[in-house]
């Protein structure tokens, strides 16, 4: 400040206070650029304080307010967009100033807060955040200071996506869902055979994929016992009923043959 060439208007804590900072005498378009570099009223305020090398807690509110208002007026002239936010701060400064200028009423309560305290707190918090922003900015950044390795690899060629796993539970749940659905729409029915019958039906049809006829007796295996015989019998009846197979017998009491039903039957219909 000592080398300031402008006229000192007064002294604050032994320092000359100048009417306008030197950098105010710059062409308006350049000024606009400078003013736009302030990220907000707190930034401007902090700049005004720091420029005079003042301690945060020593804010000469009168001086600072005047300087601040000068800047804001210029911003208004230049129609900078942020003016509204700056006006709020100007009003706050004006309020502090007027409270400071009011004679202090005699009172026992010494605890009354300095009107500047709130402003000081805000400035301190803002300055702390400014430091934080600086620290973040200085951190080595991916894409600016460091780059991640992007090494070619053939590993992806070896990736195989396993087919979805299905559990027995998934299956039974799905079937229960279907059954519930069917019950809701009563006109659809699904037949009531046991799974063993249905499985035997598939088995019979499969056998008939490989041979034209199978003998009826072949479907009754002694080791399966009575239950097995019942299942086979039900399966055959069901297959006949669903017109998937047909039975033929050359003569009474002879073995019955099973074959796939054909649409154009060269046999006599049963």
């Amino acid at each position, binding site marked *: 400040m000592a080398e300031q060439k402008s006229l000192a208007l007064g002294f604050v804590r032994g320092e000359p206070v100048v009417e306008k900072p030197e950098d105010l005498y710059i062409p308006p378009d350049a000024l606009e650029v400078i003013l736009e570099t302030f990220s907000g009223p707190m930034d401007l305020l902090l700049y005004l304080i720091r420029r005079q090398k003042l301690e945060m807690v020593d804010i000469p509110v009168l001086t600072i307010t005047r300087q601040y208002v000068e800047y804001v007026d210029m911003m208004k002239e230049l129609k900078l967009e942020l003016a509204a936010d700056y006006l709020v701060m100007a009003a706050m400064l004006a309020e502090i100033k007027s409270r400071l200028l009011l004679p202090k009423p005699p009172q026992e309560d010494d605890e009354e807060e300095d009107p500047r305290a709130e402003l000081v707190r805000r400035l301190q918090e803002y300055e702390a955040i400014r430091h934080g922003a600086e620290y973040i900015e200085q951190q080595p950044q991916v894409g600016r200071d460091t780059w991640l390795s992007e090494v070619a690899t053939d590993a992806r060629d070896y990736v195989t996506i396993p087919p979805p796993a299905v559990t027995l539970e998934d299956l039974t749940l799905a079937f229960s869902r279907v059954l519930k659905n069917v019950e809701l729409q009563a006109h659809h*029915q699904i037949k009531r055979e046991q*799974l063993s019958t249905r499985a035997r039906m598939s088995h019979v049809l499969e056998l008939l994929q490989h041979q034209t006829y199978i003998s009826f007796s072949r479907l009754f295996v002694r080791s399966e016992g009575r239950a097995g015989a019942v299942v086979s019998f039900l399966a055959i009846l069901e297959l006949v009923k669903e017109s998937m197979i047909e039975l033929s017998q050359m003569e009474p009491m002879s073995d019955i043959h099973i074959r796939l039903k054909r649409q154009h039957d060269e046999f006599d219909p049963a």
Partner: protein
Amino acid sequence: MMNSTQLKQLLEAALFAHPQPLSAEQLQQLLLTESDASLAAVKAALTNLQQDYSERGVELVKVASGYRFQTRAELGQRLAGLWQEKPPRYSQALLETLALIVYRQPITRGEIEQVRGVSVSSNIIKTLQERNWIKVIGVKEVPGRPQLYATTAEFLDDFNLNNLEQLPDIDSQPAADRTAETATNERDTLND
């Protein structure tokens, strides 16, 4: 003039970070001035780097468009684990179709559709066939001669079953008289 360690570090970093291969000429042009290092110095440094990485998990190879780092071929299979995805899940429609084929085989597509009330997409049937869980075991002698689906031995294997009877019996049709009703419907169908 850059010393050879600095030059090597710079080239190494560039080749690791750049997604495409870079030739010695490109490296020289993009990263260095004439006074930093000559093209010959760049080439020497690259050879040197190739040696440094001869025994490591990545190697510096020269391909058509330049140099690049790549993972060693022997490691490819193991590294696949990094990109291994969780198996997708099958849709409800697929599971219900499979369940119907399991519990009501042999069954036609039309019958599945009738029970589920919606059409069965060909994709579902295709998926189930590709997994070898179902197969066509014949046709039903009704108009259109639709194919009959049943489960395969592989289905049993995949679900750890010896036979279909081991599946839990789910039959929610309680009343016996419903059978009669069904029979009537069935006869109607047959008469179509």
